[in-house]
């Protein structure tokens, strides 16, 4: 409302409640790690899908993003 735009240092930043964050963190944390696994490591050290199609498909990205490959 009548808030001064020039004083952001005096207003305190309210943290988001951990109880609201926790379910999202668990669900999305796992989901995102699964995505990273498929880009970075599937059909390399371990494999959940047979063959080499996933590895070959993301091959260049895997090397350039810094993941160990071949």
């Amino acid at each position: 409302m009548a808030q001064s735009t020039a004083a952001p240092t005096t207003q305190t930043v309210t943290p988001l409640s951990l109880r609201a964050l926790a379910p999202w963190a668990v669900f999305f944390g796992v989901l995102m790690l699964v995505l990273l696994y498929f880009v970075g490591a599937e059909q390399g050290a371990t494999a959940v899908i047979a063959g080499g199609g996933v590895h070959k498909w993301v091959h260049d990205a895997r090397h350039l993003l810094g993941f160990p490959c071949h």
Partner: protein
Amino acid sequence: MNSVTVRTLLVLGMLAGLAASVLALVFAYLVGEGPVNAAIAFEEANSHEHGGEELVSRSLQSTAGLATGILVFGIAIGGIATLAFCFALGRIGQFGARATAALTALAGFLLVYLVPILKYPANPPAAGNPDTIGERTILFLLMIVLSVLLGIAALLLGRRLAPAWGNWNASIGAGVAFVAVVAMAMTVLPSGDAPPKGFPAADLWEFRLASIGVQAVLWSAFGLLFGFMAERLLEPRPARGRVPTLAA
């Protein structure tokens, strides 16, 4: 209210990650594919057994395949960094949304990529031994986990020192402690594979520099974009930075 905010932030974070990874993809295609192709040419000139039919052609690998990998990586990194942002906001000091986003992205780039690759640098095709992929994957993962945990420990240390030392000195103290412990861990951990004999050193360096560039573009674009979006969501101010003008 809070839960809805987290959900909205996650959507924005993954979108910012996707947008940032488009920029990283452009960089990877223009700068990274050259060294990759040079490495593959070296590999083919030096391999005795020839594979013949490729599962995925080079032209697909260097375009659609590269895009899939980098875009999915960007979305995933966007999501995880957003969760870290949600936790960090208001808990690492009095930083606003935009500064917290920038700091989260900087910490992510350093802890998840730059520190780990100082020990186990990115390798172009043919530079690694296929027989050691299991060991190399575990060591790389270990290095990332270690770097992230030590980063969090340094943050906690800094917060503890701050009341007595002041923010500036506490940050320096925590940073020095982080560097010292990481350096010790790096000397203890086994070395990565050496590239094959005769592999051009210039190609290796260009490839590694390109890899650093791809990640730097991704994380910095994410931090800036997401910070912009998060600030608009969390700190709405009707006339932020805008000079009122009369309609013509």
